[in-house]
């Protein structure tokens, strides 16, 4: 009987240790939530395979909202963001210059009235991420 109880105790100890490991893994896998910046097309999954290429993302810091209203006197919009280093970014169809960290700043002309400006990022695998800005220039 003593040995039987001992075996059960060993099994339960194993359960406790495995539960602790599982809890630690669950904590590590929980992604951080950032509500501060709404214009974000990032879809970054936890990296489990070190050999897998990093996932393409596009994050606009300025403007921070998709819907923007500017005065009639504002003829250009500054679009500032960050993407995967090495990715290609275009703003309204024009190539952006990307720095080593994936940052870019582009001045794009605005027409009077509503402007639909597509910011597109792509990588060498053909993956593509798009954010569309709706900018109204006028009163």
């Amino acid at each position, binding site marked *: *009987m*003593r*040995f*039987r*109880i001992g*075996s*059960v*105790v*060993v*099994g*339960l100890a*194993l*359960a*406790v240790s*495995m*539960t602790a490991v*599982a*809890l630690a893994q*669950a904590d590590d*896998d*929980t992604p951080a939530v950032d509500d501060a910046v709404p214009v974000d097309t990032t879809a970054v999954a936890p990296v489990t395979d070190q050999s897998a290429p990093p996932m393409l993302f596009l994050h606009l810091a300025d403007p921070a909202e*998709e*819907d*923007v*209203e500017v005065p009639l006197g504002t003829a250009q919009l500054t679009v500032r963001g960050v993407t995967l280093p090495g990715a*290609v970014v*275009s703003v*309204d*169809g*024009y*190539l952006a*210059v990307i720095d080593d960290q994936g940052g870019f700043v582009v001045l794009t*002309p605005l*027409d*009077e*009235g*509503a*402007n*639909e400006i*597509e910011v*597109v990022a*792509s*990588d*060498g*695998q*053909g993956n*593509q991420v798009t954010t569309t800005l*709706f900018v*109204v220039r*006028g*009163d």
Partner: protein
Amino acid sequence: MRHTQLTFGGRLRAAFIGGGASLVLVAATLAGPVLAADQTTAAAAQTPEAIGPHTHQLHGIVKTAPSAGATTFTLTTVRFGDVTVSFAGATPRGRGHARGRARSFQLATAADLKAGDRVVVQGRTSADGKSFVARRVHVLPAKDAPGKPTHLVGTISSVATASAGTTLTIRLADGTTQSVSISSETKIRPEGKTVADLSVGTRVTVVSKNGTASGVVVLPA
């Protein structure tokens, strides 16, 4: 105290009991967070934000156009779901040059709207917070209108040079090909690369608009 003689079968049963308990605990621990995360994601996807006092502009697709004489329509938006918009009318303002973009235009009355129109609406949220009062309504070009920028990622399969300029044919990953013309305005990157570097077999990303490349990026081999 009386001791029971341990048999091999007894040890085996005890081991099964302990091991089974551990598996149940681990499965519950792993499944709990996953199920909770799924429920959170589903709830977030199904619950659009509500328009509020700080909402001054919306964009979306007209779901139901106003009936004759009416000034109210329903706008389907990604962020706020379906929004009821009232538009009493406005005097359209003049427009500048479109610089190659398909142009948007302003509406004078809600009666000019039709279902499926893509619009940007400026205004404010109504006092009761249930609808949006439009000051101006801008109709955007159709989604498939020419002038949309595209990124073509592939390998140059042919280069044709003529007096009018150079035409690149790009073989894409799916095996199809697309042709784009290169002009003197086309930017070639990285810095220092020229049209001479755009040879058959080179991997490139072409940023094009209206069939003309605004930029070509030579990718690492």
